[in-house]
């Protein structure tokens, strides 16, 4: 179980980091979401993995640590709100900067000049 769990967290982190390093907002948002899933799983495992143990005293012979479960719950709620915010921000960025590149720049060679000009305009505050 530990191996499965650990590799699951590892794969999620790897995918998340890979996607965050893409320079487009949509993959970045997906990457952040995956990264936060991995973090939640990791945080949960801080209380040790166990089977058939209740997190409440008196319901089973041994009990599981309830605190990481509470921490994960908090982290999920906060992560959810943050994801919602970053999605809205990404949409606004797409509208304001004219591209979904995180720097507001399209790497496409054909459009390079157009976008550099646009960049300069944005720098000057004309757009």
């Amino acid at each position: 179980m530990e191996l499965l769990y650990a590799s699951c967290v590892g794969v999620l982190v790897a995918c998340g980091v890979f996607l965050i390093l893409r320079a487009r907002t949509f993959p970045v948002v997906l990457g952040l979401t995956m990264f936060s899933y991995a973090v939640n799983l990791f945080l949960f495992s801080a209380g040790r993995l166990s089977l058939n143990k209740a997190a409440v005293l008196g319901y089973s012979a041994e009990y599981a640590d309830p605190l990481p479960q509470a921490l994960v719950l908090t982290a999920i709620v906060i992560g959810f709100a943050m994801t919602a915010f970053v999605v809205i921000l990404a949409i606004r960025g797409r509208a304001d900067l004219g591209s979904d590149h995180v720097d507001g720049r399209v790497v496409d060679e054909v459009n390079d000049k157009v976008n550099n000009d646009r960049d300069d305009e944005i720098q000057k505050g004309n757009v």
Partner: protein
Amino acid sequence: MMQHLAFLPILLPMLAGVILLMSPFSKTKKHRRVTSVVFSIVTFLVSLALLLKVQADGTQVYAIGDWSAPFGIVLVADPLSILLVCLTTFLGAVCVLYASAGDDEKGSFFHPLIHFLVLGVNGAFLTGDAFNLFVFFEVLLIASYSLLMHGGDKKNTRAALHYVIMNLVGSAVFLIALGILYGVLGTLNMADMAQKVALLQGDDVYLAKIGGLLLLVVFALKGALLPLHLWLPNTYATAMPVVAALFAIMTKVGVYSMMRVYTLIFGEQAGQLSHMAQSWLWWLGLATIVMGTIGVLASKDLRKLTANLVIVSVGTLVALVAVQTIESSAAAIYYLVHSTLVTAALFILAGLIGGQRGETADRITAGPPMLQPRLLGICFLVAGVAVIGMPPLSGFIAKVWLLKTTLNLEFTMVFWPLYLLASLAILVSVSKAGSTVFWHQQGQVIDNAEQKRVHPAQFAALIMLTASAPLLSLFAGPLSEYAIGAATQLHDVNNNINLILSGGK
């Protein structure tokens, strides 16, 4: 009521934020402004009352819901944290006052967001629980995301996007660090963690070290320490000046957390892990001073200049934190108060100067003359002299003090020349900026200059911030005594642990 005083600096801003969203108080501009100003002043006064109580009765430990430490969450109001809470609420009140002159109507929900930001910062200063620190970080961050976008243009969206993504990654790393530390130590109460760290053996030591250094990454990101400082100049330079002024305290939250974690948890009593972050902090601090100074020299407008000055101040603070003596921490506390207020004043000045120069804005080039060159010029002179660190203002005292505390170190020969050269570079850039902006003029006063005249509320806020530099140097005696007391208590780790775990009795 008095025993709940330690909770009020968190409760009051929350109440203010919620009330400002409700009907009778949010109805008109006037309602919102009056409610917001009144609440921020009350919060400041309550923080002052708490400061007096802490001075009279010693550290206040408040167990939320009466769940005693280490099982429940405790708030710890010791001389250091309450001083910073007072600084935050003062800055909050000044910013609310300044914004009431018109900046608050450039977007929605300005006032509630300011109060939520103050709530988060106060909480981060007061909490004695590592996970609760994370929660308050998130509270202040989400308020700061929205404030950053307030009244912003397109340049602003890009800076906000970078800032938000960087901080979301930072939050994830924070959670990983907390998970590792909880897995190893089995507790999240900082005092309890400090006790458990000393007992670690075998592989657990390395795990705890990984957790502790991951925390350093997070705090370095929040505090804008090299190499994680790149987000700061753009973010602060594109935010509205009043928002940037309030953000001056936010990097200090990162520095404060470093002070707490690496003095209390991984301090001298931590066995094999004692002072584990010290060498990192020292060299990163020095490198940050260098990078910040290069940024200052290269800045093309006043707001970027000030943002780079913030980076230099963070570098200086972190280097002082790394020294880990009572004197250096005391100097750091004095420097922290000074640099926060002065950089806030400079951000606000940059906004006012930019407003009166029309299209030239706050760029450091010749431009149309200002409508009120005397008022703005004198304020800029005072803030400039303070930030450079020339006598007789607060910057000079802070600088002499911090040079004195680093006199007998192993690396004095590195720190002194480097810091003094950085000061020289700052002197050159700030005086060049001031003389260019105020003396190199061309053309006429801009057409709509009368509209940009400094509003009485803005004037009051500006004077309050600018006057802090001479006042900090006038009252340097009592303040430095207070700082030494706070630093002594910060370094008295065993006493702190006992105090927190026994509930302050």
